[in-house]
């Protein structure tokens, strides 16, 4: 029996089973911890440290703005440059503004802002908190009888919730303008024709759904990044793993949120 067991443990089937079960366990464990921390944050969300909140808002909004605007602006240029001329050729030039605006306001601005914020702010939040964990700073907070989740998570999650809609609005404006400029340059579409079409296709619902999405994205990115950092272990390698995990989980989470919103509001 012992020999059979030994051979079984060396087999590819066993290794595959073990690998998959570890991935599944890690997935359930991480999801559970993020949910638990989210509920903890909700319980102490009224305990706001305004000084820290302003600092985090500045980090979340102001610091991420240049890269976010660059990404959204360039995405608009890419889309408009490829589509505008074709649409004009096919006689659909008067739809370009509408198409670009709907695309940017509903999706590109919010999801690209989300991706930019994950890469820039999410990774930095995760590595900051992970470093605090591996250097025993979080233990020190606990020994001083201060709740580390309330102290560290609340201002960061709130700053995500508050700042992400602002970033999204500015990014959307930049995206729409970049689309107009590109359409003019590549397809000779006048600004007036672009914006007339844009106003025709844009509804208030597009805007508020996008802002609601931004609220969820911002909160989710901050919560996941803080949670992944909070459970880091094992020095520099642990900090790196926590940061990677935070980025991957945040990317997947906002795509899932995006899908839920698309089905709930536009299906």
């Amino acid at each position, binding site marked *: 029996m012992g020999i059979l067991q030994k051979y079984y443990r060396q087999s590819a089937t066993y290794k595959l089973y073990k690998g998959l079960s570890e991935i599944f366990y890690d997935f359930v464990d991480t999801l559970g911890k993020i949910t638990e921390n989210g509920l903890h944050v909700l319980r102490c969300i009224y305990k706001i*440290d305004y000084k820290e909140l302003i600092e985090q808002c500045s980090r979340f909004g102001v610091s991420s703005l240049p890269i976010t605007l660059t990404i959204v602006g360039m995405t608009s240029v890419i889309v408009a440059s490829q589509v505008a001329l074709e649409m004009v050729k096919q006689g659909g030039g008067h739809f370009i503004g509408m198409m670009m605006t709907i695309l940017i306001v509903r999706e590109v601005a919010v999801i690209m802002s989300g991706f930019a914020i994950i890469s820039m702010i999410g990774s930095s939040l995760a590595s900051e908190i992970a470093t*605090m964990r591996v*250097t*025993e*700073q979080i*233990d*020190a*907070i*606990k*020994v*001083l*009888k*201060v709740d580390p989740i309330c*102290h560290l998570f609340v201002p960061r999650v709130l700053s995500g919730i508050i700042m992400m809609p602002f970033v999204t609005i500015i990014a959307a404006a930049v995206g729409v303008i970049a689309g107009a400029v590109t359409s003019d340059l590549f397809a000779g579409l006048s600004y007036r024709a672009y914006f007339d079409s844009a106003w025709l296709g844009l509804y208030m619902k597009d805007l508020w759904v996008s802002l609601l999405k931004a609220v969820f994205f911002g909160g989710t990115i901050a919560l996941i990044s803080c949670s992944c950092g909070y459970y880091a272990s094992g020095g520099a390698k642990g900090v790196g793993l926590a940061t990677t995990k935070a980025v991957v989980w945040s990317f997947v989470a906002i795509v899932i949120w995006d899908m839920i919103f698309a089905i709930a509001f536009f299906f």
Partner: protein
Amino acid sequence: MSIEVKNLVKKFGDNTVIDNVSFKVNDKETLAIVGFSGSGKSTILKLICGLIPKDSGEIITSKGDIAMVFQYSALFDSLDVADNISFALRERKDLKKKYTEKQIKDIVAQKLELVGLKGIERLYPSELSGGMQKRVSFARAIVTEPNSILYDEPTSGLDPISSTLIENYIVRLKEETNAASIVVTHQMSTIQRTADRVVMLYNGKIVFEGTPEDMLKQDNPYTKQFVTASLEGPMKMTEREK
């Protein structure tokens, strides 16, 4: 008595790190916990201050705060010295509204003076030497007037003179605060200068309990090996550590 540990057991997986350990530390007394690396010394401190849960046994502490000085200081690197020391006064639920800004400033100045670092309130941890960081972490630990202070290898990584300075502050803090103190250490100088009693751990069990003078008598094979730093003796390094 201020800290009493009864039949304490802690396991990590199948590995029993603390195996039925019992001891007492009275007010105004300093107990040194010594032993090999990995013998469970720091785990005992983490169990006492509630950072990790115990598997069985009892930890009885008298009312009041337990403070801990961490091995690598664990100062908050995004805060300056004053904010590090006043952290609990500003953030703790029961202390938050107790002090005015002026009182907090005075308390910080007083604690810094106690550890010999007057006037460094606005410096950041990265601007301090290892010894200074340790002393700031002492000041942060005693800001809530704790009944018990736990020191996790307070002199590790310091030069002999800085070590002596830290040891003097451990004695001074005991006298000023009347706290029960536990010092986890490897260093004989720290044991001799700070401890009233010594407990030695090996494989999670207590193998010696006595005064620092008893430890030097070398009638216990464990303390004899520890004091003489010999490879020969009852304590064996694991294959992994060789």
